[in-house]
């Protein structure tokens, strides 16, 4: 009897220790809001993307362009976003969602830029020598962009000992490449109160 009690007690102790010290991973929905440290997280990125997508396609710049260019859809290229906040933030997490909304809506055309465009041109160059004449792609036929999407991220931190308020402002703007005219500015403001 005593041995059984000892064995059960030992097993209980071992299971408690293993459960308390074990590393646990739980998969959650990406849209679920989980704020741990108060820093920039996936919820912030998702909120910014939703706000920008909501306004960018409904604004009048699309209609104005189509009126001025015989109904043709505007062509947008993505420029760079400047992060002037106090944290490392990668804008691609929400800018890519905006690009995706362009494609899905069909109202705006998107062209590739940056290093990916360099890769395309490298592939084109390779095809000049290695691909068949019927299948090789020609230089000089790229679609030129009408507008460039650029942005900035700013933050203000107000802290006092264990309490702080963090304010983020994300701005995206569309600029006419020909005329330098800014045709749309979108912004999303996020404020958090963090108490340690």
């Amino acid at each position: 009897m005593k041995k059984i009690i000892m064995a059960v007690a030992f097993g209980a102790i071992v299971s408690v220790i293993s459960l308390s010290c074990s590393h646990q991973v739980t998969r959650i929905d990406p849209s679920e809001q989980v704020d741990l440290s108060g820093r920039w997280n996936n919820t912030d990125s998702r909120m910014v993307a939703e706000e920008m997508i909501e306004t960018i396609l409904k604004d009048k710049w699309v209609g104005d362009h189509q009126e001025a260019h015989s109904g043709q859809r505007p062509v947008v290229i993505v420029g760079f976003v400047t992060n002037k906040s106090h944290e490392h933030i990668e804008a691609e997490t929400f800018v890519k969602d905006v690009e995706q909304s362009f494609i899905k809506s069909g109202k705006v055309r998107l062209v590739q830029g940056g290093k990916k465009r360099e890769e395309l041109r490298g592939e084109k160059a390779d095809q000049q020598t290695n691909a068949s004449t019927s299948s090789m792609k020609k230089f000089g036929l790229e679609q030129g962009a009408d507008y460039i999407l650029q942005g900035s991220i700013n933050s203000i931190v107000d802290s006092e000992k264990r309490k702080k308020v963090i304010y983020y402002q994300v701005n995206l703007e569309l600029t006419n490449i020909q005329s330098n005219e800014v045709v749309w500015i979108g912004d999303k403001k996020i404020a958090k109160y963090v108490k340690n």
Partner: protein
Amino acid sequence: MITFAAVTDSAQAQQATLAAGQNPRFEQSRDKYMGIADSINSWHSTTSQETYKAIDYLADKAEAREQRRAFRRELRLERARYGYGWNDDYGYYSNSNAGYYPVGSYNNNYGNSYYRNGYYGRSRSFYSRPYRNSYFWNSLPLAFALGWYWR
């Protein structure tokens, strides 16, 4: 050659027929940016990180704590390499039987040379130098001057 000619031809064509309101000195701007276009366009779809350090009481405290720990670790490593460097001329830690840590007792009790010869530290200390009678050498010029005067 054909590509160069085509570019030149298009440039000349643009020069010949300016668009409505186009600045005739557009070539200056074009020539400037043609040379640096590749480096500028490589920034497309990137995020330029120009962050600043915000004032955060807890983060600054944690950082100071980490710096103190790192400093103490470095100090331990240096002491392990070069010793404690506590040797001085006043006998407290010097090689003296009348010192605070008498010779022999710690060797016998602990069986190691951690307190050997009364030194609280390693004998290969960076600061461990042979004893030098500085009073003698410092007063030598005065003695020489007096001797010269009374010669």
